[in-house]
Structures are given as C-alpha cells and as structure tokens.
C-alpha cells in the first residue's frame, strides 16, 4: 500500500469527536482512517483512538494502540500524554507522572507551555502519591498560566488544605491557597456541596460517594464481616479480583452445598464476624495468643463450635471433630492474613455476649444455636466507642506485625439489628451501634494512610436514598441495593480487564467413558 499522509480534515474530525466526547464514533472513525491510509501521522490517530478507549475503560485496547503509536513515533507528545492518562486511570501514578513530565519538557523545548488539563492531571497524580509539595508547585504553575481556570483553583485549594492539615504552619502555600479563595468553602470539589451533589439530582444519579485512597489493582484481597460482607466478597470474585480463599471446599461436595458448610462465603470458614472484639479474638487465637475455654456447645444430639455455631447445618457427632476443625481453621486464618495484600472488613454490631470466666465473645447468644444461656456464665456487652477503637487498633497492630504491608478497607453494614438486648427500641439501638462503628471507621481512615473507608452504610441508609434499597422488612438489603453499592465501589476500583479465566465446566472424564459405553451398546442417539 502506498504511504500517504493523512489529510488534515480527518485528523480534525477525530479532534472534534474527542471534544464532543463521542468515544465510540471516534474509535470507529480512527480505525477506518488507519485502514484506508498510510503511516504518516498515524501515531496521532492511534493516540486519539487510545484516548477514546481510556475514556470507555477498555485499557488493554488503549495500550495496544499506544504501543503501535510509540513504535511509529516514540517522542510524539500526544502519545506520551495518553500513556500518562492510561497509567493514571490504572492507578499507576508514578508512571503517569513520568510520561507527563516528558510532555512538559518536550513543550518547554519548543518554547510552548503545557495546557491546563496537563497541569491539572499531573498535580492530581502527584497528590495521589502524597507528593503534596510537588503537586502544589505544579498546580500553582498551571494556575499562573491559567488564572481563570476553576478546576486548577480547586485542585490547588485541595492540595493546600491537605498540606495545612499536615503541618501547623501552612506558610507560603497556605497563604497562596487562601488568596485564591475568599473563604474555606469556596473552590472545593463538587462532592462537598449539597446543592451540587444531592439537590439537582435523582438520588440514583449521585455518583461521587467515594474517592479511593489507594489502588487495589493487583492486590490479593481477603474479606470478612457481618452478613453484608458476603456481598462484597462475591462481587470481588465475580469481577475478576484475586480473592483469597484460605479454606476451599473439597471437590466431593457439590457447589450448591458449599455455603451451607461455610465455604465460598468469606476468605476462610469463620462465618459472620459481627464485632470488633470478635475480629480481634479471631486474630489473637490464630496467632496462639489466647485460648478460649468454652469452645464446644451441645446442640440437639451433637455439638457445635461455640465460636462458629452455624458453620455447618447439622451438629457434629463427636466433639473432637470440632477441635480438629478449629485447629486447621486457625492456621488457615493466619495464612489468610499473612498472604493478603488487602483486607476488607464490614463492621456490623456493637452488641455481643461474653464469657464471664475469660472474656471470650460469641457471635451468637448462648442458647440460640447451641449451648444454653446461663446468666452466671455469660453476660451481655454493648461495646462503646473507646472499646471498639481499642479493639481495632490492637487488631491493626497485631495484623501489621504479621503482615507489615497489609492495607485495610473498612465499611459499615447498613443492615440494622435483628434484635437488641440493650433494653431499648431496636431502631434506637441500631442507631447507636452504627454510629459507634461509623465513627471508629472514620477515625481509623484519617489516622492511617493504609486504611480506607468505603461508604456502604451511607449509600444504602442515608435519608437521601429514601430507603429504596431495603427489602420490605426494612432491614435486609435488596440485590438492587447491593448492585448499586458495588457499582460505586467499582467506579473507583475499576475491575481488572482480564480477570481470572473462567474455569471450564468441571467435566469428569468418566462422563466421556459412560457416553462411549452407551454408544457401543445402544448405538448413536
């Protein structure tokens, strides 16, 4: 094919589509242009197509086009820019900064300046990496060139307030930030304003609930918590994340029975973990730091594990089955914490039942699923804010000793209490529990850079959502609600494009043998 230059009008058409954000049309036109024309200026076309793929979140296709573009013209500014945008979208901020800095340098060499969006994106990437001073310099530089640009002003203000909250003396940066805003509520992100986030929209259109603190791409993820946590684990698996399963089911148990035996719900067979105290206790046991006394409860004609009384639908025939199972389970829990990169915990309750002899807490009150309630042996405890905080900080200390790089995401279950033992209205008790848990989660997020908070509680339960995500019982969350919650999560933590390959159907070779036997005897069907 003869090599011909691409006509200007076709390149202009691509640019127009880009400005109108008509990405699918851009991709179609770009591919048509490439098919019909030659290689001159094709790098630019590939870059435009890559931009469109980035916008529609098809990152692998974007990368393919950028690789071709770079081979054609390795220092093309548009190609470097798009590379930066791709890496930014994937949460690889260092790589994004590298590419964009090359663009800035290339433009400086040509005695021209970068455009405003480049300054803005570079500042954002630096901010996300915690390079606040560099981010501030970039944003100020951009703002000096584009003093009327509101987005740059907002970004600068945001960076400045982050720096201010880190240091008492905000110094020159703080003064500069303030000079661009007449008061602290000016120039904030739109999510900060009720009249931009809530008032003008249908509540289902609210889409800025959550801004991730760190990327979870490529991390091995484990999860635990109260019943709402099951939805999170399932959604992570279904969306291709590497989900830790430290206690997989045996292949002689049918998939439809896995959940009944505690398999495939969380990252290990711990059942629901409702309270901070229960989580801490589990970790302490797995590390061999404590050994609860009262571990086996009688139930009907058998026995149950007092700390996992509903992990199997029928009681165990022999108590030694429980002891053996617990030993393996605790080893699996330790492995789970050690091998995960991220742990997602859904906080559920503050109410719990405690052994008076050694302080062991139980997920279910004695007598409900085994055992017997004896007020001389067990007491009710409604954990307070200081107690929950202390439990969680001790948990964090121990787990980070075991796995120093483990990140944590907390969320609070929006599901209210089924019943309260707090001598109060159950709605009021629920409000207490959720308030305490939400406060602790928020505090921990602000205190630790490796802890984030995801607002499931608010997305389902805040009054602006009008309770539409609850089932008629007013308590459990509908599948639509779960889906909406996870949509907000995945809008920030974009699922991997190539998740684990779907496992082939479990075809047993005996099926083939049986079919051949039938064919030999009875002939073809």
């Amino acid at each position, binding site marked *: 094919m003869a090599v011909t230059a691409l006509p200007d009008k076709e390149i202009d058409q691509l640019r127009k589509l880009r400005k109108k954000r008509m990405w699918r049309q851009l991709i179609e036109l770009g591919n048509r242009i490439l098919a019909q024309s030659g290689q001159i200026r094709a790098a630019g076309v590939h870059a435009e197509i890559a931009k469109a793929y980035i916008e529609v979140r098809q990152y692998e296709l974007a990368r393919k086009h950028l690789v071709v573009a770079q081979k054609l013209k390795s220092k093309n500014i548009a190609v470097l820019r798009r590379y930066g945008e791709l890496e930014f979208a994937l949460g690889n901020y260092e790589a994004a900064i590298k590419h964009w800095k090359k663009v800035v340098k290339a433009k400086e060499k040509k005695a021209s300046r970068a455009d405003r969006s480049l300054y803005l994106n570079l500042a954002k990437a630096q901010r996300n990496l915690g390079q606040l001073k560099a981010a501030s310099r970039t944003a100020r530089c951009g703002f000096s060139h584009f003093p009327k640009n509101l987005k740059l002003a907002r970004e600068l203000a945001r960076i400045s307030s982050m720096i201010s909250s880190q240091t008492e003396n905000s110094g020159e940066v703080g003064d500069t930030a303030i000079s661009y805003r007449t008061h602290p509520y000016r120039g904030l992100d739109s999510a900060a304003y009720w009249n931009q986030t809530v008032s003008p929209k249908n509540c289902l259109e609210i889409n800025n609930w959550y801004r991730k603190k760190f990327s979870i791409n490529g991390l091995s993820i484990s999860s635990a918590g109260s019943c709402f946590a099951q939805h999170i684990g399932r959604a992570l698996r279904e969306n291709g994340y590497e989900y830790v399963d430290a206690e997989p089911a*045996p*292949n*002689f*148990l*049918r998939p*439809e*029975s896995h959940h*009944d*035996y505690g398999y495939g719900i969380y990252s290990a067979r711990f059942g629901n973990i409702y309270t901070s105290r229960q989580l801490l206790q589990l970790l302490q046991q797995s590390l061999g730091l404590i050994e609860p006394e009262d571990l086996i409860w009688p139930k009907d004609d058998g026995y149950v594990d007092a700390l996992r009384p509903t992990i*199997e*639908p*029928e*009681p*165990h*025939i*022999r108590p*030694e*089955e429980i002891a*053996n*199972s617990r*030993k*393996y389970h605790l080893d699996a829990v330790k492995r789970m914490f050690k091998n995960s990169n991220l742990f997602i915990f859904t906080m559920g309750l503050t109410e719990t039942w405690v052994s008076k002899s050694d302080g062991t807490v139980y997920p279910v009150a004695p007598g409900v699923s085994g055992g017997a309630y004896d007020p001389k042996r067990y007491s009710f405890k409604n954990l307070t804010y200081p107690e929950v905080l202390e439990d969680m900080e001790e948990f964090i200390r121990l787990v980070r000793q075991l796995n120093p790089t483990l990140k944590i995401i907390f969320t609070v279950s929006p599901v209210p209490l089924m019943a309260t033992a707090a001598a109060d209205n159950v709605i009021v008790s629920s409000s207490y529990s959720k308030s305490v848990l939400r406060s602790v989660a928020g505090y921990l997020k602000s205190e630790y850079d490796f802890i984030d908070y995801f607002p499931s509680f608010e997305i389902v339960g805040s009054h602006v959502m009008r309770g539409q995500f609850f089932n008629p019982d007013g308590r459990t969350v509908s599948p639509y609600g779960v889906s909406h919650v996870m949509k907000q999560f995945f809008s920030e933590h974009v699922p991997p494009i190539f998740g684990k390959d779907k496992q082939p159907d479990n075809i*047993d070779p*005996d*099926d083939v*043998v*049986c*079919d051949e*036997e*039938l064919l*030999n*005897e*009875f002939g073809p*069907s």
Partner: protein
Amino acid sequence: MRILVTGGSHVVALNQGFKQLRDAGKVPASLEFILRPLGGGLSVARDFYSPRDDHVEITNPKYWAKFRQIPPPGETYGMVAVSTALYSRPVWNKSDWGVYGIPGFAKDRIPISEGLLRRAIYDDNKHIIGFLAHLRTLGMKVCIVEGPRPFRHNIEVKRNGPDLVKHIDALYRSLTLEVLSREQIPVVLVPDTAFDTDGFMLEKYRHKNPDDKTHGSSEFGLLMMERVLQFVQKNTDRPG
C-alpha cells in the same frame, strides 16, 4: 406389563444380561422389558427433570435423544427400574480425598465432619430419588437396581485407600437405603455372593475392558437382571 429399565451407563450391563435371559427363553411373554438409558452416569446426580401432573419432563438436553418425558406420550409403564442411586463411586473417587479426611481417616489431612460427607451423599442421589418418588405419585411402580460396588482393581480405590472407600461406600449405602425406605422405593440389591471377603466385587463381574473403572460385566448384568425379573414377577400384582 411394560417395564422400563433406565438410568445411566450401567444399563449397558443390564441390557447385556437381559439379552441372555431373553435368548434363554426365561422372560415371560406377559412382561415387556424396555431397556433404555437416560444418558451418561454423572448427569443423573444433577438436576435433570421437572415434575408434571401426569409425567416427568426431562430437562437435561443430553437426555433428549432418549427421552423428553417419562412416560413418553401415548405410552405407559407398569414399572420403572432405575440403575443408579446406590452407586457410591462419584463420592469416593474424588482426588480431594487425598487432601481432606473424615474422622478416622484424617491423619495429615484437612479434617472435615462426617456431616459434610453425609451431605455429599445426599446431594449425589437426591435428584434420582426425587425422580422416582414423583413417578410413584403418578401411580407407577418403581424400584432401584443397585449398580456395581467398588472393584479392588480400581486405581481410585488404590489412590484413596481401600478402607476409606469401603467406609464411604458403606455409609452411602446405609443412608441411601434409609431414604429409599422412607420414600417406599424398593431396591434390587447386589447379592452378597458377588463380593469377596473384604467386601469388594468379585473380579468376574468387572468390565472386560481393563481401563474401565466403572462398569460391570455382562455376567454382572445377568446376575442383576435375574434378580430384577424375580422382583418384577413378585410385584406385578401389588399396587405401586
């Protein structure tokens, strides 16, 4: 009376046995045997049917070449005999028995409860039992024809251990017989004379193909069809 003998691939051996009986003139003219399998063995352990008012609809497309419904439109059966439900191999042959262990067999393995094993057993035969139970409610006589029990030569028996296999097979049998008794589904059992002193099937009942771990021989088919014939003759005058 028309008697349908169906099920998985174990129907092959039964068919071979039936032919021997028929050729020897031992099948009374009043009894019409139709030996027709549903399909490959494992599939009956999954959901394969849907109960209807006057028949059972077969929902697994794999089986449609043989049956879309039982009884087929315009046909009736006086009795339906199914050659599965007491066949324990799908539970004990799995490779994870090298990883997981029930009480008594849990050394160096991940311990699991006997309750879990019982669930695995119930899951394996619940569909075929449900299928037969529904046929009973439609007025048909039904029975189970026991399939071959473990063969010593089976490499899976060697891999998972003969003691474990015998334990699982025995539990499978006792639990399933309990369920069948509750559902009033009679069973044509493999006679005790078919086993060696350790409880494994005698070699003569093994499939002639040495690689076949699953099926019985034509001698096994003859052994069982003789017993099926006796059962049918004893039960032709009794209500379903």
